[in-house]
C-alpha cells in the first residue's frame, strides 16, 4: 500500500478498481446497469456501505477476536445495508424500486466484505475511510460507465436524454447478454489503457 492519502483513493479508483481489475461484485454490476442512473445509484449505495463499514471495522479491529471476525463484519455490514434500505425507501422510493432486490444483496457483495477483511482490519480508521471512498468511487465509476454504454446502445438515451430514436437501439444491450458483452469490451479497453500507462 502506498503511504500518501491520495494514493489510497487512486488505488481504489484505478489500480485496484473492484470491477475492472479485481473483478469482484459482478452480480450487481451485470444486473443493475440497465441505465446510467441505475448504475450510479447502485454504485453510490455500495459506496455508502463501504465507507461506513470500513470505518467501523477499522475502529473495532482490536476489540474483535480473530475467530469471530467474519460474523462480526457481516453484522456490521448488514446493519448499514438495512439502514440504507430504510432510508432509500423513505426518501428516494423511485430509485429504491428500480434497484429492488439488489439493495439488500449489498450485504453479500464480496467487495464490501473483501475490503473489510483485507484493508480495514489492518489499517487505521482514516486510511480505511479513504479506502472505502476510493473503492466506492471505482465501483460507481465502473457501474455508471457500463450503464451509460448499455443505455445508449440499447435505447438511444443517456441519463434519460434521448440521443437517437429508440427503435434504432439494439435491445440486447438492455438484456442480460448485452451486460456481458459490454463488460467484456470495457474490460478489454481498460486493460489496454492500463498496459500503456
Amino acid at each position: 500500500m502506498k503511504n500518501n492519502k491520495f494514493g489510497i483513493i487512486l488505488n481504489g479508483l484505478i489500480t485496484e478498481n473492484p470491477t475492472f481489475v479485481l473483478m469482484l461484485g459482478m452480480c450487481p454490476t451485470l444486473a443493475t446497469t440497465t441505465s446510467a442512473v441505475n448504475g450510479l445509484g447502485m454504485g453510490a449505495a455500495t459506496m455508502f456501505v463501504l465507507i461506513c463499514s470500513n470505518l467501523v471495522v477499522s475502529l473495532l479491529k482490536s476489540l474483535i477476536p480473530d475467530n469471530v471476525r467474519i460474523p462480526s463484519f457481516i453484522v456490521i455490514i448488514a446493519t448499514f445495508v438495512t439502514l440504507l434500505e430504510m432510508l432509500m425507501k423513505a426518501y428516494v422510493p423511485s430509485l429504491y424500486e428500480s434497484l429492488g432486490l439488489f439493495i439488500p444483496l449489498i450485504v453479500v457483495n464480496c467487495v464490501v466484505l473483501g475490503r473489510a477483511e483485507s484493508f480495514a482490519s489492518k489499517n487505521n480508521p482514516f486510511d480505511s475511510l479513504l479506502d472505502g471512498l476510493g473503492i466506492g468511487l471505482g465501483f460507481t465509476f465502473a457501474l455508471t460507465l457500463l450503464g451509460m454504454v448499455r443505455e445508449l446502445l440499447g435505447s438511444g438515451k443517456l441519463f434519460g436524454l434521448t440521443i437517437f430514436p429508440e427503435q434504432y437501439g439494439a435491445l440486447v444491450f438492455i438484456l442480460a447478454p448485452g451486460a456481458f458483452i459490454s463488460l467484456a469490451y470495457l474490460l478489454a479497453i481498460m486493460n489496454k489503457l492500463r498496459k500503456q500507462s
Partner: protein
Amino acid sequence: MKKLQSTLVNMVLVLGIIAIVAATLLAWVNQLTAEPIRLAEVAKQQTAIKEVTPAFDAVGKIISYTDETGQNINCYPVLNQNKCVGIAVESYSNAGFNGYIQVMVGFDMNGNIVNYSVLKQAETPGLGTKMVDWFKTDKAAQSILGKNPAKGLRVSKDGGEIDAITAATISSRAFLDAVNRAYTYYQKSLDAVQTAQN
C-alpha cells in the same frame, strides 16, 4: 492496543454487544423512517388514483376484497360533491412474463375504462415494459381507454379486439387479465357503493 484473545467469553461478549448495538440502531432508524415510508406509499397511491379516474374532490371509503388465492384487491371510490363518479381498482395478474404485475385501473360509473397506471411489473425491458404506455396510445386498436370490459378484453391473437404489444403477447395477455379482474371487482364494489348511497 493488543488484540483480544479468541476465548469463548470474549467471542460471545463481542459478537453479542455488536449485535445489540446493531439492533438498537436499526430499531431507532426504523421508527424514524416508518412515517416517511408510509407517506411515500400513500402519495404514490394517491397519484395513481388521480391519474386513472374522472376529476374528483375526495376519495371515499376503501372497499377491500380478498380473492380466491388470498390476494387483496382494493377498490377506491372517488367522490365529486359527495356523489360517486368513478372507482379505481388496484388489480393484479400472476401471468406476466416475469410473474406478478400490479395495475391500477379506473372506471367511470358506466364501467368504461378511464385510464390505467402500472404500479408494479418486472417484464422484459423494451418489450413487456411498454405496457406502461401501449394500452393508452390511440393507435390502431391498441388503446383500452373508453372500452367496457363487460365481455372481457382479449388480444386480437386470441380473437379479441385489442392489439397486443409487438413481441410481447404474454405480457399483453397478463395485462388484460389484470384489467378484466379489475372489472370484476369494480362491479362488486359498484353494488356496494350504490347500496351505501341509497
